[in-house]
């Protein structure tokens, strides 16, 4: 096994609540509650789950955009959470992020050229103007934007083009890892396909690693090498892509996949569904034992009292379930 690009160990992000006028915290929302995984160079890991499962918080905590409560992140062999300000600044060059809402994540008063050049000017103030412009042009070409558009403003672009601008801004520092937080969720189907293909191309040609956060399992299937399923801040299953989709093992993974409406009327109406009861429980007060036990069709007394460990299975995947 080559050295991991990124190693996350027992990462926790808890948000204290109730710290108002009257006395101490009443509790904490355990958004991410003990997540561990490795990411290899050139690998895309899809992180899926429903709202409130902690997938976005996980992405932000890895970049130290949200303060982690506990755990470690090792980035290229160094303790990322232990880095001082100067060290963090240096490391951040190689870790970038793209966001869900493409227009909201671009400053409306800056031209597209300025937006894309910003990280470069921040990290390489020594570069001459012509050099910066050349790099901006290169980044724009890379993401399929005509470099002539660099003097225009974000509002002149469509959602898909704005997402390309966001990707160009992330690419200009030639990062090793990009955290993609629901990058295609706000886009129309025909544009979504363009952006997925673009990320696949960049990933393949430049050997980038991606953490691809999405609630859409069909999209994740098209871009990921491995898939991680989160539920209420914990990993339920983490597996190779093809093995995962062919045979999801955790009851929650099975329910997620079976809930997707297929764009195929015959198959859609004929299929047997794993229908889950109820809604996601409050992350403030997660169920005891296995977090999924309140909605799990297989749950027994054991699941309500004892939390299953995330344990390896025959094909190498990890599953947290007593009955798999």
């Amino acid at each position, binding site marked *: 096994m080559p050295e991991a690009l990124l190693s996350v160990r027992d990462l926790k992000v808890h948000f204290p609540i109730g710290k108002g006028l009257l006395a101490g915290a009443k509790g904490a929302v355990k958004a991410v509650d003990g997540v561990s995984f490795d990411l290899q160079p050139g690998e895309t890991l899809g992180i899926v789950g429903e709202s409130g499962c902690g997938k976005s918080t996980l992405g932000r905590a890895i970049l130290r955009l949200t303060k982690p409560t506990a755990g470690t992140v090792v980035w290229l062999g160094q303790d990322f959470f232990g880095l001082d300000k100067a060290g963090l600044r240096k490391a951040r060059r190689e870790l970038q992020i793209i966001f869900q809402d493409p227009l909201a994540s671009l400053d409306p008063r800056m031209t597209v050229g300025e937006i894309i050049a910003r990280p470069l000017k921040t990290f390489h103030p020594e570069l001459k103007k012509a050099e910066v412009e050349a790099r901006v042009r290169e980044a724009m070409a890379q993401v399929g934007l005509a470099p002539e558009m660099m003097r225009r403003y974000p509002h002149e672009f469509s959602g898909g083009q704005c997402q390309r601008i966001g990707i160009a801004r992330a690419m200009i520092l030639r990062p090793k890892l990009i955290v993609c937080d629901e990058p295609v969720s706000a886009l*129309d189907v025909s544009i979504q396909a363009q952006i997925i293909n673009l990320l696949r191309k960049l990933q393949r040609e430049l050997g980038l690693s991606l953490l691809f956060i999405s*609630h*859409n399992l*069909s999209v994740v299937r098209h871009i990921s090498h491995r898939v991680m399923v989160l539920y209420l801040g914990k990993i339920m299953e983490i597996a190779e892509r093809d093995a995962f989709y062919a045979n999801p093992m955790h009851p929650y993974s099975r329910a997620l996949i079976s809930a997707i409406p297929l764009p195929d009327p015959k198959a859609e*109406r004929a299929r047997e569904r794993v229908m889950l009861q109820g809604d*996601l429980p409050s992350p403030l007060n997660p169920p005891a034992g296995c977090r999924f036990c309140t909605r799990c069709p297989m749950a027994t007394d054991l699941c309500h009292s004892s939390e299953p460990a995330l344990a390896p299975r025959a094909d190498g995947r990890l599953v947290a379930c007593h009955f798999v």
Partner: protein
Amino acid sequence: MPSTRTSAETAARQAAAPILSARELCVDFKLEQGWVRAVDGVSFDVRRGEVLGIVGESGSGKSQILMAAMGLTAANGRCSGSVTFEGEEVLNATPDRLDRIRGSSMSMIFQDPMTSLNPYMRVVDQLTEVLVAHQGKSRAEAVNIAVEMLERVRIPDARRRISLYPHEFSGGMRQRVMIAMALLCRPALLFADEPTTALDVTVQAQILDLLNGLVHELNAAVVIVTHDLGVIARLCDRVIVLYGGRIMEEAAIGDLFTTPHHPYTQGLLAATPRLDDDTAHDLRTIPGTPRALAGQISGCPFAPRCERRMERCTVETPTLRRTTNGKRAAACHLVTA
């Protein structure tokens, strides 16, 4: 449950008079740059017991069709053409007339239950209002009917929960409340605008299942607007594909997915990632971006993005032509008979 009907039922439905008919419906909005057309000459019929899907990308005008039929077009908009409900014109109808139809025979499920329920009113008051106002029920009778309806949409402990405020429900439960509200008067015609888009996928599956059961039970006519071909595949009998405010194609559900005629429908289907397609290759894409609202253009609205565009397509707007058996229609110069 899959919706399977016998061919006799289908034939009977075809013969029945449509409950809703739109003819050459146009919706324009006055913006800074002048009037722009969002819906451009849309015609369709819906019959009782039929679920019609309208699918399109953002800016295709799909929601505005429903808003026009419900008399909810924004103040800067104007509608022309005709929309009849049970033979009576409802487009630009007076508020009194609309109030009567909307409360008793026609209702709508909106996308976002948090912003379409009144946060200051208990659910019980929002649900009973319509029964007291339109059906002259007493408050006690109305509460009983409302509780029954909440139980039908599978809200547990409905008799207690009906006194809660919307924020005390989860997203999925709020959407159930919306559905219950829309069905209270047993409408003959139900509109649903992206009814599950704001929900998580496991909750969406529950709601789609529920909707599917209820619409068949009520024998209502249903028009569902969505961008999600999966939702269409699950619920609809017939589908209209909209682009740039115009109908590109109309077909029965099976025909549309197995033999799409219009290049836009073909592109949309190919660009949708599936759980069973090949991941070794890139997804098929439609070049360019969806048409922004930009007044009327000559030619086919999809022509700028169409890979099979001919010179004629940019000049002459193709009309929606029916196939000889009348079962499907496409607006494309390439599609003949």
